[in-house]
């Protein structure tokens, strides 16, 4: 058990100009916390994890585990276990040998290793496969062996690098829940890397969003969803993504086609003080809805309807300043509009909007 801290840690790859794969990452993870690092590919999330594991150099700053500076400690001295995307199981060892390898190196006695491995195998439903080679296992079983290898060590920190990306969709959802439950049971500090924001939202106590090596925001899933710190986080978190449009401001609010969204006085003052003529306006698909002809709304031409059963997502375009702008709207799955139809779309609640500075992308608090 231990807390983890990135203290302005950077990884800089030499070159001209040098690439800052992870740029002054400052992040504190509490003991027993499940933290998810999420971001698009190339955001530095895996690099950040590998820096913590000691598999990647820390060029600037420091990394602490359990309050101890481990920046220059080799991996074996950090008391961490990692689950790799490819699982990295030793192909020439049986499942049992794979799981017990670390203990064997530590000089633990054979009966003790056997007991520990058996215990972990029971937890992961792997008892039947202990004598098999990884080759003879299915993808899901291999994933569990990789988890088992980490659990047997009883490390102070678990690191997981996209451990579910090689599983099929159904198994992924199942395993997602299992890992979260296992982590809760063991209470071990866990850092989990994924590019899948659904995984991030469902598993993490807190989620850290990275982009181009820079930490964008780190908060609980709920907070990320409701108050994204900038336009990138707003677009990245949530599926389908938030509708983000840069629209002109009027005296009373933001102007979208026929729909004028009134903004609170304080917000308008703030925007005015910054001298902005436009604002990036964000609204999630579920905050929009179909409205009657008389109500405030904009005309949306339906281009695609995704029916998911309970809900349907309507993709369509609205003309804003004579430019067609794409919008996604969640509607009731039982009565979706037809393709090519023009429907009237309005806001469900005027408070469920997000405003961002169109230049910096930063959130404008309302």
């Amino acid at each position, binding site marked *: 058990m231990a807390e983890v801290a990135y203290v302005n840690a950077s990884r800089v790859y030499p070159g001209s100009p040098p690439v800052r794969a992870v740029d002054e990452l400052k992040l504190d993870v509490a003991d027993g916390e499940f933290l998810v690092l999420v971001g698009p590919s190339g955001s530095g999330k895996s690099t950040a994890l*590998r*820096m913590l*594991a*000691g*598999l*990647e*150099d820390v060029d600037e700053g420091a990394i602490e585990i359990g309050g101890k500076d481990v920046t*220059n400690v*080799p*991996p*074996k001295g950090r008391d*961490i*276990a*990692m689950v*790799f995307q*490819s*699982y*990295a*199981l*030793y*192909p*020439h060892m049986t499942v049992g040998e794979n799981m017990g*390898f*670390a203990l064997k*190196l*530590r000089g633990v006695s054979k009966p003790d290793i056997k007991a520990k491995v058996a215990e972990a195998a029971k937890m992961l439903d792997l008892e039947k496969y202990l004598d098999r*080679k*990884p*080759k003879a*296992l299915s993808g899901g079983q*291999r994933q569990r062996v990789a988890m088992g*290898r980490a659990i047997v*060590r009883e490390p102070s920190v678990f690191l997981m690098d996209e451990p579910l990306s090689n599983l099929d969709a159904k198994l992924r959802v199942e395993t997602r829940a299992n890992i979260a439950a296992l982590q809760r049971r063991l209470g071990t500090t866990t850092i989990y890397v994924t590019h899948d924001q659904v995984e991030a939202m469902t598993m993490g106590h807190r989620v850290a969003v990275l982009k181009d090596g820079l930490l964008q925001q780190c908060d609980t899933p709920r907070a990320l969803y409701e108050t994204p710190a900038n336009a990138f986080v707003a677009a990245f978190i949530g599926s389908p993504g938030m509708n983000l449009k840069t629209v002109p401001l009027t005296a009373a609010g933001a102007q979208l086609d026929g729909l004028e969204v009134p903004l609170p006085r304080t917000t308008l003052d703030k925007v005015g003080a910054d001298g902005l003529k436009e604002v990036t306006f964000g609204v999630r698909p579920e905050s929009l809805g179909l409205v009657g002809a008389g109500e405030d709304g904009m005309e949306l031409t339906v281009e695609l309807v995704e029916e998911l059963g309970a809900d349907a997502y309507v993709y369509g375009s609205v003309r804003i300043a004579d430019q067609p702008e794409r919008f996604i709207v969640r509607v009731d799955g039982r009565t979706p509009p037809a393709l090519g139809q023009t429907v009237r779309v309005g806001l469900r609640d005027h408070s469920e909007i997000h405003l961002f500075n169109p230049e910096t992308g930063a959130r404008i608090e309302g």
Partner: protein
Amino acid sequence: MKHGKYRFLAMAILPALALHVIFVLSPYAQAFYLSLTDWTGVAGQANFVGLDNFARLGEDPLFLSALGNNALMLIVVPLATIAIALFLASMLNLGGRRGRAEVQGVAGGKVYKIVYFFPQLLSVPIIAVLWQFVYSPNNGLLNGFLSAVGLDGLARTWLADGSVALWAVMAVMVWSAVGFYVVLFSAAMDSIPRELFEAARLDGAGRLATFRSITLPLVRDNVNAAFVYLGIAALDGFALVQILSVGPGGPDGATEVIGLGLYRNAFSFGQFGYASAMGVALFFLTLTLAVIAMRSGRRTKVEMA
């Protein structure tokens, strides 16, 4: 269409098969037959003598010392070559710079790989002549180096001293073979996923444990193949001994190898029948070695998951 297919296949196979039979299989058959005769190599006729030639082999002191020398080479040359090549290959691929986090080879690994490969580009006679200079007692590189560092006491007449001559020959064999196996093992180690080494490091494995538990088991196939090739080379050694050693095969049979006795009996003494018997004996020795090595290789086959 069926008939046409088989005719086409026969047409494709037969010419190659005919060449193989004429130039590969028939000489074998001929050697087997000659080993049972007293043919001199020049006489028009050969008398059938049964297994007499093979019985003579058992009493020929030179052949027996050749057998002993080949046996020693069979143990020393493959083991030394493979051990050195494995060490160099793992340094080149995984030796890594101290204090750096990533799993990587030593700096300039590619250059070393090419340099190690150089001896492979030289033909055996050139290697032999080169090492004659190195071993030369009065102005040779080796003795010169030893006296330069004040170890005159270790200087020897390397090739003329019966107690070290065979070791001097084996050292040349190892030197000339190591480069190739460094490249072979490097390629094998290169194909091991990096994450396996990273996982081992996280599991707490140091360099030695990583080598023993991860690297070696995963290049075992290549090591087995190396044993077969090096074993065959160690059972031969004719060309090198013929040019490098004094005598050749000397001093006093110290560097005698089967191939040398075979050559001498056939072309100097005009005993083609007896020489063929040596060849047949060597053939079965080599075959046995290959079968044993292949068998032990099959059991330990590892498949990458």
